[in-house]
């Protein structure tokens, strides 16, 4: 899911605590923002920290002056063979920057039908990934390569990766019990940072601090949750909603790291990069936030409700928009399935939506 989706969902979760809403409106507290910050935090940890400290067994650094797709394909295949032997192996692919706004692109695919690693050298592109026509390498021998791997493999995303700008992707190959290799895209993503365990640990630390420093607020009898407990609860639920949202996609999360070693596959309801699912979560969050801010307004006897008829509000602002979203989502899914059935084969011709993505957090 998009970073914004997680962020606003975190705020929505925080708004379910009446005391937090009262603290915001009466004491100028930023406590509701805490839900948003911890909602986006798992991706922040991955893309701003974890990615840099992940080391790979193999690295592909293509030489722009001696381009050869065979060398790239062989290195990736070598990493896969190591996984066949040792159980696990990782490979990091690097980009080729030729100028401040000029890059050489190449693609990597895994053809599970023929058990081959497929590499194709592409054209020069600018940082916006706009290709310069006719700049593909000329030598047909080196332009593309297919290298066979001894073990069969499978992956969640049956698409090729377009490696062009900024940092290249990383793959992990894991030998499963049936002897097949699983190809794991971005092995450093959605692991420890997206675990319930980390959420609990951080909330316990926050609870310890807040228990010591947060005084009891005014009118404690009004609330069921003591004020010091509010902070760890918002922190935990903010990160939990991130994990739950990500679990609706394909990649999944490593829910109980370090007790579980690998990511659990997602439910596969939707792709994290799709517009309608993202907007569904965003809209649901907005509706919840507005409803909660209104129903938990301070002195409800003296201040008129912004939403005088909740049924009308939910009908016009939630049921109707969700029905429209559901219609377009199902229509799009149906058309996509029809296209897939028509094509029948793995698409090795176009980069996926996630490969074109500018918001790194959605992959």
């Amino acid at each position, binding site marked *: 899911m*998009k*970073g*914004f*989706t997680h*962020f*606003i969902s975190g*705020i929505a979760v925080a708004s379910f605590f009446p005391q937090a809403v009262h603290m*915001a*409106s009466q004491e*100028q*507290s*930023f406590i*509701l*923002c805490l839900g*948003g*910050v911890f909602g*986006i935090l798992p991706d*922040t940890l991955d*893309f*701003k*920290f974890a*990615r*840099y*400290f992940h*080391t790979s067994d193999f690295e592909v*650094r293509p030489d722009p002056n001696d381009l050869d797709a065979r060398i790239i394909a062989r290195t990736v295949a070598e990493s896969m063979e190591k996984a066949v032997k040792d159980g696990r192996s990782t490979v990091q692919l*690097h*980009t080729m*920057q030729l100028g401040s706004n000029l890059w050489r692109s190449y693609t990597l695919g895994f053809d599970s039908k023929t058990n081959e690693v497929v590499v194709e050298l592409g054209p020069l592109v*600018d940082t*916006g990934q*706009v290709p310069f026509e006719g700049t593909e390498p000329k030598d047909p021998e080196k332009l593309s390569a297919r290298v066979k791997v001894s073990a069969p493999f499978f992956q969640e995303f049956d698409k090729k990766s377009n490696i062009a700008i*900024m*940092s290249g992707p990383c793959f992990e190959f894991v030998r499963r019990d049936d002897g097949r290799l699983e190809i794991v895209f971005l092995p450093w993503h959605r692991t420890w940072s997206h675990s319930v365990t980390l959420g609990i640990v951080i909330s316990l630390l926050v609870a310890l601090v807040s228990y010591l420093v947060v005084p009891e607020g005014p009118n404690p009898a009004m609330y069921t949750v003591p004020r010091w407990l509010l902070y760890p609860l918002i922190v935990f639920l903010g990160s939990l909603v991130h994990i739950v949202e990500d679990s609706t996609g394909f990649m999944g999360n490593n829910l109980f790291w370090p007790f579980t070693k690998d990511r659990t596959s997602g439910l596969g309801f939707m792709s994290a*990069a*799709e*517009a309608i699912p*993202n*907007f569904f979560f*965003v809209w649901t969050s907005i509706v919840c936030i*507005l409803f909660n*801010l*209104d129903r938990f*307004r*301070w002195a409800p006897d003296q*201040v*008129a409700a*912004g*939403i*005088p008829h909740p049924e009308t509000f939910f009908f016009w602002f939630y049921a109707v928009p969700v029905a429209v979203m559901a219609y377009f989502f199902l229509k799009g899914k149906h058309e996509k399935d029809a296209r897939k059935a028509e094509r029948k084969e793995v698409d090795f011709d176009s980069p996926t*939506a996630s490969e*074109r*993505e*500018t*918001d*790194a*957090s*959605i992959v």
Partner: protein
Amino acid sequence: MSLLNLLLHPEALDLVYFTIIGVLFSLFVSFLPALHIYNILGIFLMIVLKFEAGMSGMQLVALCTGMVVGYSILNTVPATYFGPGDESLSYYVLPSAHWVAMGRGYESVILTGVGAVGGLALLAISAPVFLWVLPGLKSITSPHMFWIIMAVISYILMSEWPKGVSQSKSTWANFFEGWKFLSVGLLTFFLSGVLGFIVMSKTLVPLEFAFQSITPVFVGLYAIPWLITNIINAGTIPHQHECRSLDLDWDLFSRGIFGGFLGGFFAAFVPIVTAGIGGLMAGHATAQRDSRLFVMSYGTCKTVYYVGSFMLFFIPGLSLTRGGLAWIVTPVVATLTMKEYALFVGMMLVATGASFLLLMPFTRACIRLVEWVDYHLISWVAMFITLPMVYYFTGWGGIAIMTVATGIGLLPVLFQARRMNLMGVLLLPVALNMAGYGNDVLRLLGLL
């Protein structure tokens, strides 16, 4: 029909003329490159004040409506070819620069124009809905605005992802390379914020030009760095193709308008949030990817932001004053009824039509200009117009503020960080002041 009858009633016909004059004025000011909407409003205010006595309240409103609608549609053209003047424009200019580099600048401008017209049409359609929805929305959000702005700040800072491309064997080297860009973004935001606190508490601008106190800040943060970049840029603008049709379908059109409308409305409704910020958030909320979608959606977002914030003022009983124009007309519009609201919507639509008609010839004229005159020279000329203007309005104090702001404004340009971070100049002081921490920060900075 009743709206048309109301607008074409002989009593109201003069408003159409004033609307058109406003559009023509916007054509002139849009051509001044690298000016922020607040600078434009300052110039507009100075001119209007000279003629205010000879105008009725609604005539001034018509003039303002024509100006803001025209400016929101037409200012994309000089921004595309000569450089952006504010944060809302700079959000759009980097993607549009790719289109210009491919010779498709004309198409990019027309796409934003289509987006703008779509946004204004949606604004007109939503006008009756606003009467029903906005009073409730205002009463719910009013006590919470400060944290909503802080949430926007948090998201802007947390959603910038590393751009480092270091391929070193050392993980720490890669880490520092990635964080170089993020750190510059954070530094830019906080330096801008400190500058905002200083300018808002102890401005160096002479009192008689106090309404222009923000001018040198925005000229320094946005205009001058962009002009410097243009001047030192070694590239040339390729021949620009004037397309006869747009690569656009209904699906893309509706998605672009919808996303842009959400972003523009959010920016119009929440104080200090601009179209660039609203556009970024709406783009992420609706998972936009297609560059056509982005460009068109930007046109919608920017227009809905500029015009929508003015429109909020006319909603009877709402009393929501957002943006400089609303403050300009506040003293002359005594009562706001459904008639004024309907007239505003009518004038907005007249201005939309007139501005869109002007968009294509105006774009062609700008293309001729950049093909005929080297854009480096245009940037030099813009620089020589802007600097004396800042001095004239704000004196040496303004020049000093502008110089400091230019230093901060160059940071994201040099390190390829988000220019949006420069909006810390308004976001940080306003959010902290609204939350009641403003004086503490001023004391910490030794300003109180």
